[in-house]
């Protein structure tokens, strides 16, 4: 008869202080392997191991669920190891296996070993070793730094261990071995040491290789692919597989120096008429990408801005608004918005092109509409309160440009290339900045047209103002006396 019965109860005496850093990958490994070890029912049912080997390990419900699903009521056997794969996935969709933790069983039995005493204690030691080793592998440091650039994912599966995804020169650590009457359990970890992959592939536009990982194993016991799960449990309420942020491929990545307005909308230029709905947006400031000038020839008082001389590199952007407000089709409207493209995107520059414009420097071509009628300064639009400073400047440029538009043949337009800036890849931050600040917008009060307009109004209202002031003469006098 056994005189000693080993039982443990959790949490009653010892303070179980958890890792405040939330080591995701280690916890999941511990949890999944501890579940396996816990369910390792040995022949002697008196000593079925029910507790956590007297080691306080916080269970993560999702991991428990995944591990139980993978276990499916069975235990590791020869050729059927329980594996936990830890991988890294970047925000661009590239992924890389970092570690594979493997719980194997072989047929080497130790019939004479005492289960309740020796095996139990050795399994407890194995768990402690697992705790220690999980802090030592390179993936631990990566998991501590996961966030926007990459996340750490895990996957639990049964079957043959596949180490080919770990790259060349991977290293193996044997965490421990425990002999039992049913076989010998071995826990090991194979980890990648060549982590240079991340930095070189960071800016490559390669398709995500998740498909390869999912189909990694030839004879998977489960017909459906086991999905990867994130290892980040620092914020509560995250859903499976949706915990990590994903960066859009292009559009909305653009940053501007002068505006926080939403990205402009791409509109295919159409000559047949019909205005694509344009969201009423505040005008954009200078963009940091390849962009084109907006060019339009509206019929009515829709807002527009003229373009500066455009080349493929030196561009500024203005967005139009309020076309939609007019409600009537603009047959001659050739409005092209600029599509914002993320930095380092190898998209052809002429993806967004002025397809309808055949002649260079088309903005200088004689227009059908009088400029002044469409001058935003004269007829301010109803909609956006925020106007891009660029708009005015472009207007001024445009007006100056258009005034000389007829004589553009006398000018030789030279590409504006500021020193120390490149044209081909990076957007013309420096050029647009320089140009914009060379041409600041006119002050509205100093604008002659506006001045002329408001002067008449001022003159009309002058008598009224004088009458009011005369009424308050005494207050003014008292004020003046206080100043003396």
């Amino acid at each position, binding site marked *: 008869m056994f005189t000693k019965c080993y039982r443990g109860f959790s949490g009653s005496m010892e303070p179980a*202080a958890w*890792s*405040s850093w939330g*080591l995701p990958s280690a916890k999941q490994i511990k949890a999944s392997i501890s579940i396996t070890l816990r369910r390792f029912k040995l022949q002697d049912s008196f000593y079925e191991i029910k507790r956590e080997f007297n080691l306080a390990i916080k269970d993560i419900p999702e991991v428990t669920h995944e591990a139980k699903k993978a276990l499916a009521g069975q235990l590791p056997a020869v050729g059927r190891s329980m594996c936990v794969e830890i991988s890294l996935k970047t925000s661009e969709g590239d992924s890389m296996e970092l570690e594979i933790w493997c719980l194997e069983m072989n047929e080497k039995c130790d019939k004479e070993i005492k289960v309740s005493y020796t095996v139990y204690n050795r399994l407890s030691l194995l768990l402690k070793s697992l*705790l*220690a080793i*999980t802090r030592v592998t390179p993936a631990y440091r990566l998991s501590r730094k996961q966030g926007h650039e990459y996340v750490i994912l895990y996957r639990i599966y049964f079957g043959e261990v596949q180490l080919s995804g770990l790259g060349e020169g991977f290293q193996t650590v044997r965490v421990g071995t425990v002999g039992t009457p049913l076989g010998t359990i071995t826990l090991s970890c194979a980890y990648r040491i060549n982590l240079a992959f991340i930095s070189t592939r960071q800016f490559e536009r390669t398709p995500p290789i998740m498909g390869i990982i999912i189909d990694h194993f030839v004879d998977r016991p489960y017909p459906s692919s086991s999905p990867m799960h994130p290892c980040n449990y620092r914020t509560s309420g995250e859903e499976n597989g949706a915990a990590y942020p994903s960066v859009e491929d292009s559009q909305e990545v653009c940053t501007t120096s002068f505006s926080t307005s939403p990205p402009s909308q791409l509109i295919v230029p159409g000559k047949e008429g019909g205005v694509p709905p344009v969201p009423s947006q505040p005008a954009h400031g200078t963009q940091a990408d390849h962009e084109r000038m907006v060019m339009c020839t509206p019929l009515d008082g829709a807002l527009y801005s003229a373009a500066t001389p455009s080349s493929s590199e030196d561009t500024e952007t203005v967005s139009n608004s309020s076309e939609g407000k007019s409600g009537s089709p603009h047959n001659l409207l050739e409005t092209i918005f600029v599509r914002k493209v993320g930095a380092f995107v190898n998209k052809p520059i002429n993806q967004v092109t002025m397809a309808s414009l055949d002649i260079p420097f088309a903005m200088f071509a004689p227009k059908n509409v009088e400029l002044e009628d469409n001058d935003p300064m004269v007829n301010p639009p109803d909609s956006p309160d925020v106007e891009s400073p660029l708009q005015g400047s472009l207007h001024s440029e445009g007006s100056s440009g258009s005034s000389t538009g007829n004589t553009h043949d006398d000018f030789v337009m030279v590409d504006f290339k500021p020193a120390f800036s490149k044209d081909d890849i990076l957007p013309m931050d420096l050029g647009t900045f320089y140009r914009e600040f060379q041409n600041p917008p006119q002050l509205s009060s100093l604008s002659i047209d506006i001045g002329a307009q408001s002067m008449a109004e001022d003159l009309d209202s002058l008598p009224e103002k004088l009458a009011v002031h005369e009424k308050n003469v005494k207050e003014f006098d008292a004020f003046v006396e206080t100043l003396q």
Partner: protein
Amino acid sequence: MNCRAEVLEISVEGRQVEEAMLAVLHTILLHRSTGKFHYKKEGTYSIGTVGTQDVDCDFIDFTYARVSSEELDRALRKAVGEFKDALRYSGSDGIGQISLEFYQKKKSRWPFSDECIPWEVWTIKVNVVNLANEQERQICREKVGEKLCEKIINIVEVMNRHEYLPKMPTQSEVDNVFDTGLKDVQPYLYKISYQITDSLGSSVTTTMRRLIKDTLAL
């Protein structure tokens, strides 16, 4: 019964000594500690649960897991602090070693005192280096971190060889095997000692021992 001896060597900068020693000692004690035993009738007992927590080092790129017992941590910090001070003020070249010895008590009859029989001794040899500039210190941070990773793996390999461990004692004998003085964890009986090697290359202790032996031999 032979005492198992393991030796680990590491070179660290002066300010890394404390953290490196704590990392190694805590890792060893994590494996050599259990929950508190609660004896019941009929010779049965239950074992309490041990919690763990991570510790990030400030001067080394390294994190280790330790038993979440403040008492045990304080005891280790005190011993390591004394070792660090001895290293600093001994005037030696910065070479020393700290030993963690697990032992069993064997009751002896009066008037002899109890005998302490070590069954496992871990010796960590430390070589303190002086670095000239911040760049070297940064490299040292990473390198020492990697070295400590190797040491942890070594420790785990030794632990999982499943060599001799004292038998689980009865209630009357538990104090001969385990340190029951802590309230939240029960490590095997252990003691920590250290030696500082002077500039002559020999330890002060061995020199003293030699002197005493020589004196007695006369």
